[in-house]
């Protein structure tokens, strides 16, 4: 059933966000620490185990696949609700600070990616733009 997939996803999400909040409280910061990342790890491990045992039916997979595919539209909606006016109102200093931080980090990506050997490029995409 489709809901088994969505239910598994929701369970991993809630467990991860819960642990992220707990972690934030333990180290004393007012933020969720890695909740989404932890949730992703749970989903990866759970799906790995279930797929290996052949316990995931294609229809169950659809219950996750839909949410994964709706991701880009959600990101577009997220962009549409940003406080762009405030960002532009920050003036030259805010713009310079944000922009230089981005440029510096862009430049560091190839440097740090080489640590411990470069990664293998993903294969050429077969379906471009199936958002």
């Amino acid at each position, binding site marked *: 059933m489709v809901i088994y997939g969505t239910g598994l996803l929701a369970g991993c999400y809630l467990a991860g966000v819960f642990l992220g909040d707990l972690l*934030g409280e333990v180290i004393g910061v007012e933020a969720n620490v*890695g909740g*989404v990342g932890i949730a992703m790890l749970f989903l990866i491990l759970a799906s790995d185990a279930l797929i290996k045992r052949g316990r995931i039916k294609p229809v169950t997979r659809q219950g996750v696949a839909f949410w994964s595919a709706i991701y880009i539209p959600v990101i577009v909606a997220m962009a549409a609700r940003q406080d762009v006016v405030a*960002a532009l109102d920050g003036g030259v200093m805010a*713009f310079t600070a944000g*922009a230089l931080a981005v440029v510096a*980090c862009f430049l560091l990506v190839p440097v*740090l*990616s080489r640590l411990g050997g470069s990664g293998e490029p993903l294969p050429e995409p077969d379906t471009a733009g199936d958002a």
Partner: protein
Amino acid sequence: MSPLDTLARVLEGNGLVTAFAFVGIVIWVSYLVSDLLTGGRIHGSAIAILGGLALAWLGGTATGGSRGLADISVLSGVGLMGGGMLRDFTIVATAFGVNFDEIRKAGVGAAISLVVGVLGSFVVGAAVAFVFGYRDAVSMTTIGAGAATYIVGPVTGSAIGASSDVIALSIAAGLVKSMMVMTGTPFVAKAIGLNNAKSAMVFGGLMGTTSGVAGGLAATDPRLVPYGAMTATFYTGLGCLLGPSVFYFVMRALVGG
């Protein structure tokens, strides 16, 4: 009641569904623009994200609110659709079927990138603040924290007692960063080797802004999203931890008071 009033009532009363329809149209137009005007060279989702930001600017200008298009009442559902809950839920969904070995292989590099990313943004932001005449430790720390993310900035600023205009500047710096990562990533992806799981994880750790990383990678290659997002979600927590403590103490030692 005129039919237009009735339509507005229906759209407002069904906000999330209205948002689905609206975003669908935005993406359809964006792919048309991508095909017809750029010959497919600029990816449709990059144009859609840019379009979303432009619409947010229009919404913010029209209403004076802080939530972009979502402050226009018939489009309030865009706020729910693009809010933290659905964003994080769909990000987690992208992890389904990801290869765990890839993540283990990138583990050390990704962890280093988190620390380098947070500290690097702090230093760059604080240096810019210094150049623009903010020479006290509290302001430099707060603006440096804003250059990390627009959440780390205000959290750090309130913790060390920064004034509200400095906190507003730190939020603006973080917003600029997030939007630049969203729109700039597809254009630099090739030059910085952003075509594999490992560099995507390093990228997420260096940039840190979850919205920026999520949007930027989505417009580059959606298959990179889960890797970048996974490390990026640790960044804000780390920044909130280091900002008001280590970073503030170092700043105070350097510039005094």
